[in-house]
């Protein structure tokens, strides 16, 4: 309860009280500069993290979207089976579109391996149906069961073999990005805390004088908390802006490097930056409050 009162007392502006804490000098700028440097780092951690998660999204999208059904059947049965499989697919949840490949398309697929002259039309080769999945994907196991019951010549290949390592790689990238941001955010909080405490230690005389002339603890704590929290906020705003400007001026993604997105923030990502200054100000607020109360505890 008392802490809450101190909190609100801390946010009420008071001209005289604000002047009690020095507004210039080196120890005064320590909190600002630290919050600035840390906000700058956090911007990069965010940028890295978003880039990693975009990259992994793209990989997942690119791979997860497709599957293939291969139908082997005697020549006269072939078209019936293809029809039947397409019918099954049209009622399968998670299948966005299904399309039987034409002979020319199948030939194009094989070209890298056999050149353009392979006489496919004369061969009893299987037909391929390409499936585009919806975002949720379909139940491969269920589909396999239905296919084996209704179209025994059809084999589903959901490309799992190719997909798995890349999806794992993408997940790990996202995870690394998140780890980086957690570690940088935690270190930043520690640094801002450290700076606030150091600035407070350098202002021990102000606290002593105030206590001696009869200021109560809430007044003293509030004077420092307001100043330091606002300094951390201002510093963090400067740091975020500087970081954002640098990120903006980084080489943009080149057109053909589409598989890896650039480091720039995109769309709503920018909003995350707005959280950084209040967060660092809160850290400074709490750190100053604790440190001031500790210094005061030593004064009778």
């Amino acid at each position: 309860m008392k802490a809450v009162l101190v909190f609100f007392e801390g946010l009420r502006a008071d001209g005289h009280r604000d002047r009690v804490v020095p507004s210039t000098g080196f120890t005064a700028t320590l909190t600002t500069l630290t919050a600035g440097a840390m906000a700058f780092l956090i911007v990069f951690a965010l940028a890295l993290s978003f880039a990693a998660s975009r990259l992994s999204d793209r990989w997942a999208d690119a791979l997860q979207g497709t599957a293939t059904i291969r139908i082997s059947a005697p020549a006269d049965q072939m078209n019936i089976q293809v029809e039947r499989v397409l019918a099954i697919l049209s009622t399968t949840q998670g299948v966005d579109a299904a399309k039987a490949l034409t002979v020319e398309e199948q030939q194009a697929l094989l070209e890298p391996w056999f050149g353009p002259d392979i006489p496919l039309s004369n061969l009893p080769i299987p037909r391929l149906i390409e499936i585009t999945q919806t975002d949720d994907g379909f139940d491969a196991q269920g589909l396999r069961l239905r296919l084996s019951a209704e179209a025994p010549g059809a084999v589903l290949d959901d490309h799992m073999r190719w997909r798995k390592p890349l999806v794992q790689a993408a997940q790990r990238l996202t995870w690394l990005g998140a780890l980086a941001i957690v570690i940088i955010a935690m270190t930043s909080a520690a640094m801002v805390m450290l700076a606030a405490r150091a600035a407070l230690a350098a202002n021990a005389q102000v606290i002593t004088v105030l206590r001696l002339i009869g200021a109560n603890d809430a007044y003293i704590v509030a004077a420092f908390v307001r100043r330091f929290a606002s300094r951390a906020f201002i510093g963090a705003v400067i740091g975020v802006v500087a970081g954002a400007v640098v990120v903006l001026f980084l080489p943009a993604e080149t057109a053909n490097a589409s598989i890896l997105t650039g480091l720039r923030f995109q769309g709503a990502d920018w909003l995350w930056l707005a959280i950084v200054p209040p967060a660092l100000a809160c850290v400074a607020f709490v750190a100053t409050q604790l440190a001031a109360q500790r210094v005061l505890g030593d004064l009778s």
Partner: protein
Amino acid sequence: MIELENVAYSYGGGELLSDMSLSISSGAFYFLTGPSGAGKTTFLKLCYGALVPTVGQIRIFGNDVRSMSRDDVAVMRRRIGVVHQDCQFIDHMSVQDNIALPLAVSGNKTLAEDANIKELLAWVGLTKRAKAFPPELSGGERQRAALARAIIMSPDVILADEPTGNVDWEMSERLLQLLLELNRMGKTVLIASHDLSLIRSAKSQVQARVLRISNRRLQLAGANL
């Protein structure tokens, strides 16, 4: 106002002050003397609650210092004006703001007191230096500023630790007049000083009692000054 009962104090080694009993009554004028290192500053610190006695009881305005909360101590200090031996200020605020600080801190900022500050500055001879910063003051000017800060709240008790250690004879006479004036208005005054001529001068104008710390004890010095 301030009562000591069998008080002793030690900084950790042997006892510095032992077995002191005293009742400082309202409106009295005291001097405190004793050799350097005898414990005068320590005694004053006990009187304004900056130190808690190791033995015995101290009551300030009727409250036992041991039972006071931190905020009680803060409020109590607004009723006791203290001139510290090593006067400390807030170095980035002007002398005038420093002197007015107790008003701001206790929330009693009114125009009447604004006029009061001007008068006070004139009395301690700091009108010209009002806008200066504390590190730019001379030794005597600091002491005078500290005295002004101690009495701006018009406290019930004034404790002054060597308030004239760095000022010339004329100025210390002038400061004594200020303190005598306040005493006449009913304030209790206790001055720690080794300036015998100041004590003599005061004794000729007011019924001042002289306390002496010797052999770790508080003694009332008689007319033997």
